[in-house]
Each structure stands twice: as C-alpha cells, then as structure tokens.
C-alpha cells in the first residue's frame, strides 16, 4: 500500500493534447475514481500510471519513489482491464498465479496465495476451468483475483464493469467496494459512469478533454459543482439549466418571479455581461409541496417509475442551449414523489427552494455560488 503522487503529467499524441497538466495526490488506501465522457483521457492517464505509455512530461511517485521512467513490472502495481485480459490457454489457477510465476515465486507459495485469493473472491470451485467456461461475472472476479494475489502497492482498474449487464454491474460494484474496505489497497478506478463514481469513490476526479474539472468527494460534487460541466455530468436525471437574468439586488428572475440568491448584485451583473447567467436546479429539488419559489407548468410528458414520477415541462423563455441541442430539446424535469395521478397538459403547481439554486457564468461555465 502506498500513496500516489501525480505531478503535472501531460501527454501528446502528435499535435493532439490528450492530457493537460494532470496533478493529483492520492493518499494511502484511498479509492479514487477518474470519471469523464469517453475519449477524455482516463485510460491514457491510467496507462501512464502503469508505465504502459510514456508521459510527455511530469512526474509520478508511488510510495514516495519516483517511478516516472520505471518498467510496468517494477512499479509494484496491479491492473484490471476492461475486457479482463484473461489468457484463454491457461486455467483460472494459472491465470491468477501468472504474475507470481513470472516473478519466480516458488510453486508452493503461489499455490497458497492463489487459494487465498480465490477464497476471498469465492472462485475456489472454478480454479481448474478455463476462462471460456466462465460467465462474465466470474471472469471479472478472476481478473480481480489476478490483481489481489500480487499484494501490490496499488490497484488500477480501467472500466472493469462495463462488460457486465446492468444487474451484475450493481452487484460487482458493491463487491469491489467491499473488497477495498477489506484489503485497503490504494485504488484508482476509471469509469465513464457517474453512478459508479458516486457510489464507490472516496474522491472523484472529473475530467473533460484531458483537463481535470473538479476533484472532490461525491457529496461535494453533488452539492457544490465547480462548473456547468460537472453539474451536468453528475446526477441522474441531470440538472435542469435555465438561462436567466439578474433582478434588483442579489436576486435573479425566474418564471416571472424574483428569486433571492447568495451572490452579490455586482457579481451577477458582471456574469450577465459575460455570456449570461445560467441557473441550475436538480430535478429532485423541485416539488409539489409549495413554499419557496412557486410556478405553474403544463407537463408535456409524465413518466411513472412506480415510486416516483418524472415530469417533463418546457423551459419557455428560460431555455438554455449552451450544453447541446438534445439537452435543450428535452426541456426540464422534475422528479416528484407524488403518487396521486397527474395528467399531461394539465396545469401543475411546482416549487423549489431558492437556496438550492446553482448559478453559473454563461461563457466560462464557472459556478457563482
């Protein structure tokens, strides 16, 4: 187990800047998740960390030791790959013991450690099979077994659950978290799925186009997103965005009402001239109970999920098209616990607490509050 320090690492493929000035300090035993849309450089970062790709610049320390130019095998890390990379010609036992064998550890010791790892992951009965004869979840466990049997300083995992079906993914997610609690090895986990990031991480690193957007624990990320991208990426369904204008004093105009906010009037004016003000309200913070700012809508679509309802309605004058067109076209969503019947096209009174409103500057996307 060890701390990991990534200092100003960047990576170019020719003229393409895949990673830009990536710095991250990871504590001993921490579970850090790198999350971001596909192509943002997560896998590249992990490969650089593993030594499978050279960095174009910067330094990497594992347990205080500079490993920037060290061979992957000398870094004392283990990696779990998206497609597991299990060798089809070896049995599960030989697959798990592969790393130990390559390091010349005596056969009896390998046997003992493989048995131990297999017991932890409940794959003892599969040891004599070949990967082809295993289900997706079992292969996933074997791949994990190959990592833990080495007792490395750190685990690197690159989208390890993305080949599993939805139900198994939830199950394995919990199992990986439990495994981490149990053996406590520093883990860096890459995913494009924000739910995985939120549920598993001690700390989440959100990336976009090779740049870190925010590093924070899941709660902070949800409550205080640093910019529009983070706000839109975290949460399901995503945050509602409304383009708005400042009212008199520390307040904004929303649905024809004056909504007080904890941002100074000057700051609001400045943001307004800087690409406009964008207000963000999470679907879960819109309710039918009244209080706070109330407004009337005509739902265009109502989806019932049994325990809750998703109410879609038009943003009208507040339509914000800064993120992408699709986002703007679907309108706004309220997530209601309301169980009485609601009808599409019928007037509905909704409300939100002004304290729950996030404000962003239009051009830079930076959060104002």
């Amino acid at each position, binding site marked *: 187990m060890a701390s990991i320090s990534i200092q100003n690492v960047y990576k170019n493929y020719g003229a393409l800047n895949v990673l830009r000035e990536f710095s991250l300090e990871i504590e001993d035993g921490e579970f850090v998740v790198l999350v971001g849309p596909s192509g943002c450089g997560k896998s590249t970062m992990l490969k650089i960390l593993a030594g499978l790709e050279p960095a174009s610049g910067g330094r990497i320390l594992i347990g205080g030791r500079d490993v920037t130019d060290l061979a992957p*095998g000398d870094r004392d890390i283990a*990696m779990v790959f998206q497609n597991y*990379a299990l060798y089809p010609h070896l049995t599960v036992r030989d697959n798990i013991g592969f*790393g130990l064998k*390559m*390091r010349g550890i005596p056969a009896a010791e390998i046997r003992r450690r493989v048995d131990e790892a297999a017991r932890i992951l409940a794959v003892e009965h599969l040891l004599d099979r070949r990967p082809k004869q295993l289900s997706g979840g079992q292969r996933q466990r074997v791949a994990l077994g*190959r990592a833990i049997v080495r007792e490395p300083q750190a685990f690197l995992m690159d989208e390890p659950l993305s080949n599993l079906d939805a139900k198994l993914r939830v199950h394995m997610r919990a199992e990986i978290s439990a495994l981490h609690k149990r053996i406590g090895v520093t883990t860096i986990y890459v995913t494009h799925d924000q739910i995985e990031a939120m549920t598993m991480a001690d700390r989440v690193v959100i990336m976009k186009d090779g740049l870190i957007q925010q590093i924070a624990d899941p709660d902070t990320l949800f409550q205080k997103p640093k910019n529009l991208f983070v706000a839109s990426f975290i949460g399901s369904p995503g945050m509602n965005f409304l383009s708005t204008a400042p009212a008199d004093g520390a307040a904004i105009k929303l649905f024809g009402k004056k909504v007080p906010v904890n941002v100074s009037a000057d700051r609001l004016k400045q943001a307004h001239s800087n690409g406009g003000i964008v207000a963000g309200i999470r679907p879960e913070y819109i309710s039918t109970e009244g209080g706070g700012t109330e407004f009337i809508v005509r739902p265009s679509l109502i989806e019932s999920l049994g325990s809750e309802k998703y109410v879609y309605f038009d943003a009208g004058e507040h339509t914000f098209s800064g993120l992408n067109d699709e986002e703007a076209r679907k309108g706004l969503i309220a997530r209601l616990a309301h169980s009485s019947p609601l009808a599409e096209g019928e007037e509905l009174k909704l409300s939100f607490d002004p304290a729950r409103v996030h404000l962003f500057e239009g051009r830079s996307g930076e959060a104002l509050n």
Partner: protein
Amino acid sequence: MRKRKLIDLARPSRQHWLGYILLAPAVILVAAIIAYPLLISIDISFQDVKLPRMGAARKPFTLENYQDLFSSPEFWHTCWVTLKLVVVVTTACLAVGLATALLVNNRFRGRRIARLAVALPWAVPEVIATVIFAWIFDSSFGLMGWLFIKLGLANQMVAWFSDTTAAFWVVATTMVWKGYPFVSIMCLAGLQSIPEDFYNAAKVDGASALQRLRWITIPSLMPVLGVTMVLVVLWVFRDFSIIKVLTDGGPLKATQTLSIMTYNEAFGFFKFGYASAVGVITLLLCVIASMAMLGRGSKAMY
C-alpha cells in the same frame, strides 16, 4: 391465388437445395480431376500394369506391387529420406517463419517494405527459385562455394550435388527458403489477432519479453501454428519440382522422396502398377500424418 413456382427454393423445407446446386459444379470438377484418377491409381496399384492404356483389358488382381514395395530397400530408404526432409524443412520453416513474423510485427520505419520482403519468396515461381538455387550451389562457379572459401569453411569449390549429405541440405535449404513465407504470413495474421491487453497485463505482471513470448505469443498462436504445420508437412510430402529440378533424386537416391520415386517408377521405368502403389502409400501416410496432427492440435487448445 398466386401460382406456385415449380421449384421454390425459398420454401423452408428446401433451404438447403440452393447450397447443393451451387456446390455441384465444383464437386463434379473435383470428382473428375481428383477422385477419378485417384480411384484409377488405387485400382492400378493392385494390378501388374507396365503401361496403362485406356480401354485395355483388366489384369488380374494381385498384391505383388505392395509385396515388392515392402521388401525393397529402396522404398524404405526413400521413406527415411522423406521423413528426414519433412522434419527438417517443417521445423526450419516454422522457426524462420515465426521469427520473421515476430520481427515485422514490431512497429518500425519501413515495416511495410520489410513485410513485403519477407513474403517475396512466396511470389517467386517454384521452378525459378529452384533454378536460382541450382546456380547458387553450382559446383564450379556458384555463390555459395565462393562464400565458403571466403569464410574459410572450405579450401576449394564444394561439389554440392555429388555428396549425399550436402545434396540433402541443399534441397532442404531451397525448400525452407520457398516455404517459410507461408508460415510467416500465417503467423503475422495470428499475431495481429492477439489482444494488446494480453501483453499489457503481462507487462504489469512483470513478465519479460522472453516470458511474454513463451507464455502469451506462442500459446496464442498454437491454433494457427498447428494448421500451418500440417499444410507445410503436406507440401514437403508432395513437392516435386524443387527436387526434380535441383537433384532429380540423386546422388545415389539421397534426395529421392516418395513423390520423386512415384514419378521415376512410372515415367522412368514404366512400372505404373508399382508407381501407383507408392502413390497410394504416400497418400495414406499424408492422411495419417495430418489426422494425427490436427487431432492433437485442436484438442490442446482451449
């Protein structure tokens, strides 16, 4: 109601008809040019035929050809030469082919040219390649003799084709040169289908380049290598032109393989019955050898 077609191939119960119809010309052709001569030669091998003629009366059934064959030292010697050649050439082809495939599978400048160069002998017609090698190993002004003298391995020009051992190795060398590109191309295709993450995982696990070759590359190539080996073995078994042009089986029948013997008995001594017996035995050996190798190969994988 729509009129029913006479032969409606789209009917579920007739789905397989189209396959047979499309296959028929090929099957008929193969039957005419392979199966029919094969049956004829099996038939002839059980008769005392000197020179067969169409429409000639059948000779009585006899096992004489086979009895002669199995009691002839020449036949056993030829079997031994064939076996030696098969083992030497196949081993060398696999080794050289795999090595060159590994080489040109790396990323480097000029890789396309290198791949082309590796495959080049494959494109040279067999007879031309053999003639070139005959010149290279010429006993009075061949390149190889000159090279041996320059390197101090010999004092004077080597008479490659009058020494039994030397002649065998010249034949083997020529066959390897002509045969390895096939192995190389097959291996290259196999190498490219090995997932990059296999190597990444092994690197993270601390495997050296040699260990990666031993534990990932070779096992992953096994299915390809197995099939390739069978094809190379069969090629060595049946190849005729290289030996015919280079040594014609000599000196002292040191390079006479079963296919050369078949030819010599038939068209040299006009003993067609006897030659057919050799041919049938060759066929049986090929079938047995390939079945043994394919059976083992497919069981060993996965």
